[in-house]
């Protein structure tokens, strides 16, 4: 099954797991399986219209899915999907 790598800010919603293996033949299906298993993740990945949020990028192996077939991008056994959100550290935010 494809593996999804969960970034630190989203691990509280996956029982602190840093990677989850999920079924699916394309990116959308794998993410659907992920947000079904961990329902609280859904609002962090998708906006109210059900579109991936613009500050969260999804990579299939090393490639941004925006430059592949987006959520229809096919995935296969052994592929790694990475969720890479924008992060900001240091002081309290929002200031």
């Amino acid at each position: 099954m494809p593996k999804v790598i969960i970034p630190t800010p989203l691990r509280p919603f996956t029982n602190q797991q840093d990677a989850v293996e999920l079924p699916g033949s394309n990116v959308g299906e794998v993410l659907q399986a992920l947000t079904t298993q961990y329902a609280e993740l859904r609002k962090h990945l998708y906006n109210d219209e059900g579109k991936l949020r613009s500050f969260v990028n999804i990579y299939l192996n090393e490639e941004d899915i925006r430059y592949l077939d987006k959520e229809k991008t096919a995935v296969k056994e052994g592929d790694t999907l990475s969720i890479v959100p924008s992060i900001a550290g240091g002081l309290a935010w929002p200031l």
Partner: protein
Amino acid sequence: MATLTATTPSVGGLSNEEILRYSRHLIMPEVGMEGQLKLKAGRVLCVGTGGLGAPIGMYLAAAGVGTLGLVDFDVVDASNLQRQIIHGTKDIGRKKLDSAAERIADINPNVQVVRHEVALSSENALEIIRNYDIVVDGTDNFPTRYLVNDACVLLGKPNVYGSIFRFEGQASVFATKDGPCYRCLYPEPPPPGLVPSCAEGGVLGILPGVIGVIQATEVVKLLLGKGQTLAGRLLLYDALQMRFREMKLRKSPDCPICGPNRTIHQLIDYHQFCGVPQQPLAPQPQPAALEQEIEPRQVKALIDQKAPIVLIDVREVHEHQICNIPYAKLIPLGELPKRLHELNPADDIIVHCKSGMRSAKACDLLRQNGFLRVRNMKGGILAWSDQVDPTVPKY
């Protein structure tokens, strides 16, 4: 078999002191006299002298970058010292600019430090950045990050980017000629509150060291014109797994500032863009039956009077272990939606966290769920330590 080059600049050479100081650079063919003089001629602006800015400033100074601009308006706090190694214990309470400039002068007095004691803004960013060759982004918030990005794109200056959270870091080089920018990666920031901040989430002290040193390396390579920079690549670092990964980063054809159909032609209001009000939040129109905030000393008085209040601590378990108020019930903010049934809407509820921000979110959440007698303890447990019990440690 050494060969003499005829291209060695005759002006602005190195003194004997500098030749000795930079000897480990000078004997490397990738740097040499020519490269060292490029570093000396280099003008680099470091935005922030905090976790990332500390190693960036120190290494670039040691490497012999001729002019280092520093932007910061903050003061050194004890809680900075776990990671901001350009500042020391003796500097607590001093301006970060003073402390950083002093440290840099000690490392390398040949470096000219230019102090910019301002918050970088749409009004001053272009004027400041214009004078530099490269900008290194050591900022800790989204409004400044988008501002730095946009200003660098508009001025055509490379923007050496780094960002950190807990055990994880990102680095890249943006806004090089034909290269992608931060908006190609993330067109928009997350709305406030959706992504936890570092003051809430914490950061491994060494992490900004690793990421900042990567940024400093990229600056040196850009100045030397050697090697492959991170332009077009996003480097991801996970300290817990001790793993580096790399993603491809493309120039987005839809980028609003560097794309062919760009819609942004000048700097904008970045606080508004990021949904972060510059003014303190106006009180929300709520049908609350009570004042929305309460001072720690008033909470203590209520406890002493044995008033029927319920005190909730919405910090994380590991923060509760550092210090806590004995009467408080711990429900971490993230668990609150699932644990509302443990609370009674008829009770007088007072919520606290570390400094009052998360508890304000918790109060909003409670009010939305019909808990009207909810108050936020102003200033959190930090203010409790100030007003009620100084034996409670601050962190």
